[in-house]
């Protein structure tokens, strides 16, 4: 494979995305909802309510979390503990869905979009190999979602540390577990999901069909998000955490290799396969 050509394909796709307002506006809106508006509203609401019985009852439900997760919760008052738990175990994992949503939206349109616009003909006749096209487009789908999540979490970190930090002994987010999530878990899940989305995109007849079908691949990320939000994932030992991540990386690598072989030039041309 020619890395130079992969980067060229990736950069060109990203350049087109950055020029597209119909992509950037929903991206900004989605990120703002998950990283700013929802967390701020809920955390400020708890702030305003204080240690009222409702908040105390929410705080008591934290007892269902695994021991390791419970031990990590900081704060001396029920409202502070509730805010901490929401910040770390509810919002943070939910926002992991953001990269998947963004990347899926891009990835679903990438192959079929080339075909619909007629630009697939140019790529099909170019010297670029199909595996180079596949990887270039996968990176162009992966990067916006992953980068938006990092930027969003940067803003989110400032927000939750400002609201909750003073009550739990200072800045606490991102936690070590969160770094593990973002650096060890999210990339392979996202790559795995994108390999499937791109294969779907190459096979279906329209972008709408690709987006509908690719909704199915959000399932792995929802599972990841759920396990994290209940603290199960990080209630496990370091060895288990490493092992689960490793399995995800291996699955992503296998799916990537298989996807590279599955894409044909005829898919870019949009001709029926005999």
């Amino acid at each position, binding site marked *: 494979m020619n890395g130079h050509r992969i980067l060229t394909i990736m950069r*060109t796709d990203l350049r087109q995305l950055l020029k597209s307002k119909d992509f950037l506006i929903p991206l900004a809106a989605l990120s703002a909802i998950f990283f700013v508006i929802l967390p701020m509203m809920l955390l400020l609401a708890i702030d305003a309510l204080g240690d009222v019985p409702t908040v105390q009852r929410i705080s008591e439900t934290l007892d269902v979390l695994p021991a390791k997760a419970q031990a990590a919760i900081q704060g001396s008052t029920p409202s502070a503990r509730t805010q901490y738990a929401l910040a770390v175990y509810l919002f943070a994992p939910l926002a992991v869905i953001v990269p998947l949503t963004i990347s899926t939206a891009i990835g679903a349109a990438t192959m079929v979009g080339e075909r619909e616009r007629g*630009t697939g003909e140019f790529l099909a006749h*170019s*010297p*670029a190999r199909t595996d180079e096209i596949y990887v270039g487009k996968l990176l162009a789908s992966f990067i916006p979602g992953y980068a938006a999540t990092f930027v969003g979490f940067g803003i989110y970190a400032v927000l939750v540390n400002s609201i909750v930090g003073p009550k739990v002994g200072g800045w606490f987010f991102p936690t070590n577990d969160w770094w593990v999530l973002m650096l060890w878990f999210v990339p392979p899940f996202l790559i795995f999901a994108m390999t499937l989305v791109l294969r779907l995109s190459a096979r279906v007849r329209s972008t709408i069909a690709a987006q509908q079908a690719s909704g199915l691949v959000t399932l792995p990320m929802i599972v990841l998000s759920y396990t994290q939000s209940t603290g199960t994932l990080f209630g496990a030992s370091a060895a288990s955490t490493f092992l689960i991540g490793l399995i995800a990386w291996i699955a992503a690598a296998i799916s990537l290799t298989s996807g590279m072989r599955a894409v044909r030039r005829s898919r870019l041309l949009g001709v029926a396969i005999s």
Partner: protein
Amino acid sequence: MTDLAVHPPTVPTPAPAPAVRLEGVDRAFGDINALDQLDLEIAYGQITVLLGPNGAGKTTAIRLITGALPADAGRCETFGVDPLEHGEDVRRRCGVVAAKPSLYDRLTGLENLRYAARLYEIDGDQDARMREAAARFGIDHALELEVGGYSTGMKTRLALARAILHDPELLLLDEPTSGLDPESSHAVLSLIRELTDDGRTVVMCTHLLAEAEGLADQVVMLEDGSSLVAGSQQDLIAMYWPRPAVLLDAIDGVPAATMEATGITATREGDFVRVEVDGADDIADLVTALVGAGVRLTRVDPENPSLEDLYFRIRRDRAAGVEFGASS
């Protein structure tokens, strides 16, 4: 025993390999046979025009030539190699302009060219090459604009500039004047003609007969995925109209008796009389004889069949089940 010293063995000089050779190629899409036992040979440095109605297999042939599509059966060779096995090398030596210009609307003209320059890994000063190619097709003034705002003619010019950017040996142009006004079409065809002056091989698909007229070194007529005939326009016309003909008309008509007296068979076609002769000298003799017999000629029009005449003649013969050139 042959005396090798006196009669050294003569090694026949191999004919130069064609730029493209397709032999007995089949390609189907589902139940539709896009190509059916297609044979095609394209010589280096020539303009070959693939003529045929929509669905004749012209675009599919181009896709097979670059290895973008595999054939179901038959043999494909481009530059003497299998374009599927050596796809990267073959495609690097080809420049393609598709029926739709295949440009990225959100990118500027320059960004579109740069994308191609990088995919084709053009050495040297890419920027200079891009501007030179754009200037050649008169689109250099619009390189900083987004392609989405281009007219159809501008897009075609940019697509042509992109196709020659990497200095390809073989240019494959699929309906390059589609959607263009007559002036732009004429300009594009002139530019295509210029490209062969640089030694490039050009394959152009079209269903517009007037475009191919006088442009093609070789005409290949396709129908239902097969090649009906192939050859230069002059050779094909000579095959279908082996004897020159002349149309005559006169005040009060050309009398049949006078024609019979000249010994030349004539047929009436509408208001005119069509006469087949053996050569240009016969036309002069015929005119002299007719004038001598008191016929006041108003028209002496040597017949010059166009590509359109040839096309419809071939299709008519095929529909009637007549063998190649047999009805002439």
